[in-house]
């Protein structure tokens, strides 16, 4: 049996899903955090049933990619759990009535039940059940309340086959039901609502937006550097280094195997960035340099996502985003891209048109450095002075703006207007934040760390075989003249296809000037996305889109790198 979780955006479907299946999916407090479906399993009596978390939709007449996915899924379910936001019964019931006109048996989970009571909204469950003719179960998914009752109600799921209605008839019916089952007592505006208003007004909202973004940037940097200086470096230098030196002696202090495992050690001390062995750079780069940034960035992002601030940020930046062919909501995929480009590009599915999705995905893959690369930029470029780091960021911001402006002009079509629901502010639950952070951190260790080790191994093997020289000779003219980088940097740029953090690490031993490091960082950020981003681009914008995007990328990288190089000359 296959059960579908269907409902409006941001009503808590993903939380219900996690509760029922024990599979933790990322959920946030903004509409559209689930852009593709997730499957999980649950025991129902003796039977193992499949549950699908369907992206949120307001109606069954789809207006964007995520809603199309939702509609396509509907035909495949044997049962539907319609998750309804009890604080917003009227709008949610429209979809409920649409679903009831179909013939899949359904139960209704009346979620956020606790908030509805706090807001003075009283819903008569018996009357609502009578009107809909399906079981209605009050739930509070975040605390697990009502989940047992919801599962028990599944066998009673009914398909009353309401008569097909027109849009206006349906709204009439909704109004009629709400009038009979819901009583709203008067309530005062809370402090959260006052803050909600302030963060949307032009002046106060602008100041709040700048403060939030600057706070994240500075907070993430200091937290990460603190973790690196106080925990990671002492651990690697004090505990790990002596062990590695022992391994080095065991392997005879030299030879191919020694260089693969331990890397290049001179004078009995280990330079963890430059030695480039599996046990040295292979572990130090991902764990000591990158992981602290992953941890603190995703903690900040999780708090931001669950508070409900992101849609407000979308409103504040909407006017600016229209200048680059997008609307404000594209800021959410962009923010996700700062962690890793892959989920960022996938999140562009919340945008309405193909044109917008192409622009947003291309801009993310070119101008948004992921957390791993940013960590290395702070570590290596930052060592030459903070102003060089700022220069890298300023250049990428400028590229983002200029490129977006150009793409908007080049591509036919227009940018649809912003139309989004703004969720109420919620105090993020510690449990949810910790769970989400754990999911993302585990993802980094499972997917990224092995790839870093693989990249280090492959680079060493190819280097010892002398294969890189041919590639380097071939590309060297462009890299040395236009970009002003040393010939060996070609290899680092090629490695950027696997992992950008490893690639920037490879530039460390090249005796580059601060200016060259800035050019190298910018080129790495812009030039060819890493293999994972490449794959997701292909999936999301298709082969033709990817070809065009790559063309834009090559041109933009050479122009930007060339100009920077001239400025430093």
């Amino acid at each position, binding site marked *: 049996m296959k059960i579908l979780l269907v409902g409006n955006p941001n009503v808590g479907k993903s939380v219900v899903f996690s509760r029922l299946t024990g599979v933790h999916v990322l959920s946030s407090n903004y509409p559209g955090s689930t852009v593709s479906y997730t499957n999980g399993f649950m025991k129902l009596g003796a039977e193992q049933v499949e549950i699908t978390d369907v992206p949120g939709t307001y109606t069954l007449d789809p207006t964007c990619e995520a809603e199309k996915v939702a509609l396509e899924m509907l035909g495949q379910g044997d049962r539907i759990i319609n998750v309804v936001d009890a604080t*917003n019964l009227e709008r949610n019931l429209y979809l409920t009535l649409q679903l009831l006109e179909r013939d899949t048996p359904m139960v209704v989970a009346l979620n956020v039940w606790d908030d509805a009571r706090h807001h003075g909204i009283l819903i008569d469950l018996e009357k609502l059940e009578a009107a809909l003719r399906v079981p209605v179960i009050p739930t509070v998914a975040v605390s697990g309340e009502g989940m047992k009752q919801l599962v028990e109600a599944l066998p009673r799921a009914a398909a009353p086959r309401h008569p097909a209605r027109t849009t206006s008839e349906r709204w009439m019916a909704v109004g009629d039901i709400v009038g009979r089952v819901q009583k709203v007592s008067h309530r005062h505006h809370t402090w959260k609502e006052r803050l909600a208003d302030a963060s*949307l007004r032009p002046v106060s909202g602008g100041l709040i937006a700048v403060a939030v973004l600057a706070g994240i940037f500075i907070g993430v940097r200091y937290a990460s550097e603190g973790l690196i200086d106080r925990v990671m470096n002492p651990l690697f230098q004090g505990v790990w280094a002596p062990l590695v030196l022992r391994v080095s002696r065991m392997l005879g202090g030299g030879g191919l195997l020694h260089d693969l495992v331990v890397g290049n050690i001179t004078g009995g001390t280990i330079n963890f960035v430059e030695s480039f062995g599996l046990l040295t750079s292979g572990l130090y780069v991902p764990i000591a340099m990158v992981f602290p940034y992953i941890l603190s960035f995703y903690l900040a992002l999780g708090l931001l996502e669950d508070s409900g601030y992101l849609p407000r940020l979308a409103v504040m930046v*909407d*006017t600016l985003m229209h200048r680059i062919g997008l609307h404000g909501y594209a800021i959410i995929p962009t923010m996700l891209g700062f962690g890793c480009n892959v989920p960022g590009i996938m999140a562009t599915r919340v945008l309405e048109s193909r044109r917008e999705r192409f622009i947003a995905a291309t801009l993310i893959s070119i101008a948004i450095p992921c957390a791993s690369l940013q960590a290395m930029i702070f570590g290596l470029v930052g060592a030459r002075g903070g102003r060089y780091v700022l220069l890298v960021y300023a250049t990428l911001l400028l590229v983002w703006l200029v490129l977006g402006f150009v793409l908007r002009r080049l591509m036919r079509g227009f940018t649809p*207007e912003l*139309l989004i629901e703004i969720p109420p502010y919620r105090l993020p639950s510690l449990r949810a934040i910790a769970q989400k952070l754990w999911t993302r951190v585990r993802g980094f260790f499972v997917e990224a760390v092995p790839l870093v080790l693989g990249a280090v191994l492959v680079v060493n093997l190819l280097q010892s075989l002398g294969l890189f020289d041919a590639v380097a000779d071939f590309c060297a003219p462009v890299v040395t003249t236009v970009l002003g980088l040393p010939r060996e940097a070609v290899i680092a740029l090629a490695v950027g296809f696997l992992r950008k953090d490893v690639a920037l690490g490879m530039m460390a031993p090249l005796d580059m000037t601060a200016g060259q490091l800035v050019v190298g960082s910018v080129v790495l950020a812009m030039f060819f996305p890493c293999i994972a981003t490449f794959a997701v681009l292909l999936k999301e914008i298709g082969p033709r889109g990817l070809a065009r995007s790559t063309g834009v990328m090559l041109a933009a990288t050479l122009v930007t790198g060339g100009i920077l190089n001239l400025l430093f000359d």
Partner: protein
Amino acid sequence: MQEGDLVTAAEMADGQQGVVVRVDGEQMMQDRLEALGIRPGRKIRKVSSAFMKGPTVIEVEGCSIAVGFGMASRIFAKTEQTAP
């Protein structure tokens, strides 16, 4: 209380309340607004608008919706005003 003039959501003052009278524009846009609860007969409150024809935020049934300036200019509401 006296019924005021017909104004668009874009023109309403922050905090002003009104009842939606009609929504102009393509059917597709009307449907999307309707799905979010903005349709004739509904009481709305303007929350804010941005500089330079940025989005307007309106509250309908306790739920805030951000709409682009163009759409906000096509939502006509009868506002509530106190008699002079």
